[in-house]
């Protein structure tokens, strides 16, 4: 058969030759012609230096700087570029032993022979300055600038969280992170990690055999700059936060203050706290161990990780539910003869209406009210009425996570009917079985944050916004915090209960919280004393002010102290005054002095000492 198309081979041969010419021309351009890709001397090497971005800054609600950055230096090594050097001098300058040196070199070599790894972390600026003069004597080593956190005031550690090096799990989870990167842990640092961390860059340097930087490669054409993370404006009032931490010194407990109109957290204190500076830099792991071992649990954030029975501060909610369910009206009165059945009460005038019941914190009043709620003929059974009651509590944010920015907040507890069924059998329990819920005792548990949120909802007369600590990140506001949660209780009913809370602070004889009163601001509040099986009762106080157009809602817990009126109420009133007036009046000076000097932890340890 004749080959008709034999001539086409020339076309194919031409095509191949042209392709090879194109390849060679391109190779000639990038290898011989273009400076961009060419190195000037054979001994020169390229060094890729990751440009670590500085994290975003954190400001408080008034524009005061809370968290910023300080310089630190990581000593890096590229094993393939090291050669003989004065190891003794090296170790002396860096204050490490030769054993450590050998160990670190081995680790670096195991990681990669040609890639850089961290030899010594976070050298201070002073040691860096000293070492830098001699660095030419240590080929293969260079210094990489990093940034560490610095705090304008030693407060707010529980809100801010801290920054540490990524671990392997995080590297696996998110390929953005490489060994040696920093990542936010807990608090704002973790919740807003993406906004704060910024963007890494890379700089390529020409380096000679003595590790001296000869200039930037290709005049920086291949470099990318690091971009600093976005700044964050917190809702915290730094002065208020600092003041609250001072008031809580030498006490265990918690304060949460919220702006009711927005849900913004103004202060969040868990005591004892710790200086955030302790968890920065090389000392972090050591300090972390110390803090973890402390029996007073300074790392434990009581504000939303401790769940207490709310005690009498819970009474306003039960009053509200009863009004809404129409089992009482404001004028409904109950008499009290030092208590109700097995629930005791203190002595006060009797009978009392709703306002008086709240003002005097009468246990009998609320036991009767709660009984009416559960025995409401509208419902076929106690269980059903209980479910209805529980649904109101859920609307207030009890028994569920509030979904703040803090991943580790506790949901608290409002037992489902099944819980009681288990102990008493189905339909085997009645209002009297669970009567301690009437006064906020028993199985119910809520965090200080939930109590502050409840107070904010009362202050708003029936709604709240999810509490949050960040107002805007990188100029953007978190939209999920603008959702308004309405509670299915008429605002008129709130007004009735608020009258009682007003009276509790500002009323005459029998008012339980007169210590919290301020001369020119109407404070509404409610005391509480939480029975503590392990020791002295916890003192609790919730309050908001001013009564009309409230600006602050607050919950204060002082553990192992006693009556709510004695400790928590003055702390709360000082916080309110500080926030509304920016300073403490002379008239309140004695309260402040007493609270600052109060040392419950010292007393406790004294007692312990005596017992031994």
């Amino acid at each position, binding site marked *: 058969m004749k080959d008709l198309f034999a001539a086409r081979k020339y076309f194919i041969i031409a095509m191949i030759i042209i392709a090879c010419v194109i390849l060679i021309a391109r190779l000639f351009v990038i290898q011989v012609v273009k400076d961009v*890709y060419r190195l000037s001397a054979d001994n020169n090497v390229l060094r890729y230096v990751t440009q670590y971005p500085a994290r975003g800054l954190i400001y408080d609600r008034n524009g005061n700087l809370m968290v910023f950055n300080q310089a630190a230096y990581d000593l890096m090594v590229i094993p393939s570029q090291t050669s003989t050097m004065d190891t003794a001098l090296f170790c002396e300058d860096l204050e490490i032993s030769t054993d450590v040196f050998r160990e670190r070199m081995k680790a670096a070599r195991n990681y990669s022979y040609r890639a850089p790894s961290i030899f010594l972390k976070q050298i201070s600026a002073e040691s860096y300055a000293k070492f830098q003069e001699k660095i030419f004597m240590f080929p293969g080593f260079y210094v990489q600038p990093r940034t560490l956190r610095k705090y304008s005031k030693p407060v707010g550690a529980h809100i801010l969280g801290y920054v540490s090096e990524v671990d392997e799990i995080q590297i696996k989870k998110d390929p953005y992170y490489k060994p040696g990167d920093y990542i936010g842990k807990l608090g704002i640092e973790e919740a807003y990690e993406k906004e704060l961390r910024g963007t890494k860059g890379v700089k390529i340097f020409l380096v000679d055999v003595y590790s001296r930087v000869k200039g930037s490669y290709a005049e920086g054409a291949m470099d990318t700059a690091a971009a600093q993370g976005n700044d964050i404006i917190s809702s915290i009032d730094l002065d208020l936060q600092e003041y609250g931490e001072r008031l809580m010194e030498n006490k265990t407990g918690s304060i949460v203050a919220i702006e009711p109109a927005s849900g913004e957290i103004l202060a969040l204190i868990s005591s004892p706290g710790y200086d955030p500076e302790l968890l920065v830099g090389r000392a972090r792991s050591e300090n972390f161990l110390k803090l973890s071992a402390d029996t007073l649990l300074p790392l434990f954030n009581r504000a939303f990780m401790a769940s207490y029975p709310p005690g009498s501060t819970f009474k306003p909610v039960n009053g509200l539910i009863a009004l809404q369910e129409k089992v009482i009206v404001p004028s409904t009165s109950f008499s009290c003869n030092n208590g109700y059945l097995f629930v005791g009460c203190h002595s006060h005038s009797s009978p009392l209406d709703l306002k008086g019941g709240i003002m005097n914190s009468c246990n009998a009043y609320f036991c009767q009210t709660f009984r009416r709620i559960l025995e409401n003929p509208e419902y076929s059974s106690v269980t059903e009425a209980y479910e209805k009651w529980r649904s109101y509590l859920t609307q207030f944010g009890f028994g569920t996570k509030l979904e703040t920015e803090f991943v580790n907040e506790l949901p608290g507890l409002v037992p489902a009917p099944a819980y009681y069924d288990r102990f008493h059998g189905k339909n085997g329990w009645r209002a009297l079985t669970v009567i301690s819920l009437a006064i906020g005792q028993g199985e119910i548990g809520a965090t200080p944050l939930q109590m502050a949120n409840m107070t904010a909802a009362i202050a708003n007369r029936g709604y709240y916004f999810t509490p949050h600590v960040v107002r805007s990140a990188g100029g953007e506001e978190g939209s999920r915090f603008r959702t308004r949660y309405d509670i299915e209780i008429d605002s008129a009913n709130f007004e009735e209960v608020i009258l009682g809370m007003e009276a509790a602070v500002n009323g005459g004889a029998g008012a339980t919280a007169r210590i919290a009163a301020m001369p020119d601001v109407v404070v509404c509040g409610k005391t509480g004393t939480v029975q503590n099986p392990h020791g002295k009762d916890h003192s609790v106080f919730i309050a908001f002010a001013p009564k009309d157009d409230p600006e602050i809602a607050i919950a204060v817990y002082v553990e192992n102290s006693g009556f709510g009126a004695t400790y928590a109420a003055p702390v709360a009133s000082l916080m309110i005054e500080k926030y509304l007036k920016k300073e403490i009046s002379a008239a309140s000076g004695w309260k402040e002095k007493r609270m600052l000097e109060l040392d419950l932890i010292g007393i406790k340890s004294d007692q312990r000492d005596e017992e031994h």
Partner: protein
Amino acid sequence: MTRNINIWKRVDKPVVIVYLLMVIMGWFNIYAAVFNEEHREILDFSQRYGKQFIWIVAALILAVLVMVTDARFYFFFYWVIYGIMIVMLILLFFFGKEINGSRSWFEFGFVSLQPSEFAKFATALALAGYLNYHRQELTRFRIIMPALGIILLPAILTAAQPDMGSTIVFFALILVLFREGMSPYVFVSGLLMIILFFLALLLDNYMLELILTGLAFFLVWLVTRKLKVALAGAGIVLLIGGPLFMLNHSLNEPASYNLIIIITLLVSGLFFAYYIYQKKALGVLVIYAFLISSVLYINTVDFVFDNFLRSHQKERVEIMLGFKSDPHGTGYNLNQSLISIGSGGFSGKGFLRGTQTKFKFVPAQSTDFIFCTVGEEWGFLGSVLIVGMYLFLLLRLIKLAERQRSVFSRTYGYGVMSILFIHFFINLGMTIGLVPVIGIPLPFFSYGGSSLWGFTIMLFIFLRLDASRTEHLI
């Protein structure tokens, strides 16, 4: 039968020598690429260079086995070989191991095999077998379709893995069809399709369509030599498109410009058909057909690109086309590759002196990016040597192919040449930024058993056929 005596004398020595040189150079470059201070021994079997030695020894054994097999075996059993490989490619969907999101590998204990590497020579064999009977009739549609089918079947199967690199390699066999008589128009259309493909991704569809339409009327003017006809045609398009555009603009949810243009072109087609019928203007018909199929094609490309390509492949194409420059994303590899090759300069840094910390920066430096090591350590001289060796090998293969008596051997030779050519061009092209980063190995150089064995078998089958070129296969 004299083959057992003559076979070693008659094997083409230049090709064997180039093959051995390439394999050994590849091995040394793999050693340099993944060199590890703790394992300096080139025969350390825990390292890739140690393993590559095993693959090379196995490849040489395979070469000998291929050579001692009777040449007629390949002629009589090409369908069986092709069939087995297709079945293997299908079985991948059920038993393949997923690596980096594609199912391209079988894993047997400690050995992994990539069937697509073996499907390449099988497809070249099958195509040769088919063309042996039909070569003079490649201008006929009925004859060309099965030939395209032989190529398309493994291409589609690899595309579904997805392994775009292998898919493109199969299309290289179209060059064989061209050599054996396929119309140059088809070949030119193919090239046009590639150009339109990139333009479709570069430009907005409606822009490209407007340009093509304008071009079409210009061609009509050239073909008919009547400016009036071209202008009248353009007038019709404007008369139909204008109102449609206005109408569309007033709608609440207007359709895309793209759709308006397609509708306009199709409707104007009715008027053009009348003209074509009246004047028997075949040239205009061809232009119109080309225009419509181009428009449909670019829309298909865009649709496939948006809906079927995986995001990393999309990104690679986008970076090659300059849409994106992300030094830490996909473009980072290319940047690093360019830096290491470019830093080699004229004469390179010398063996094991490549100071780039490529280990961290170019992930596939012992496989797809092996040329980086060559470029960095051996410089422009070394690079040209490699290109030169390939040029020699490819031209030598054409020379050998052309001296075959049987069409089967010749077309198979062209098949081998085409596959090696596309691998070589795309692989080098991607490391120096001429083509998108498509993951295919550099034959005989890249690390990996499957590719080395696949290429060795492919090459030596042809050498075996060449050694018996004076005998009759049938």
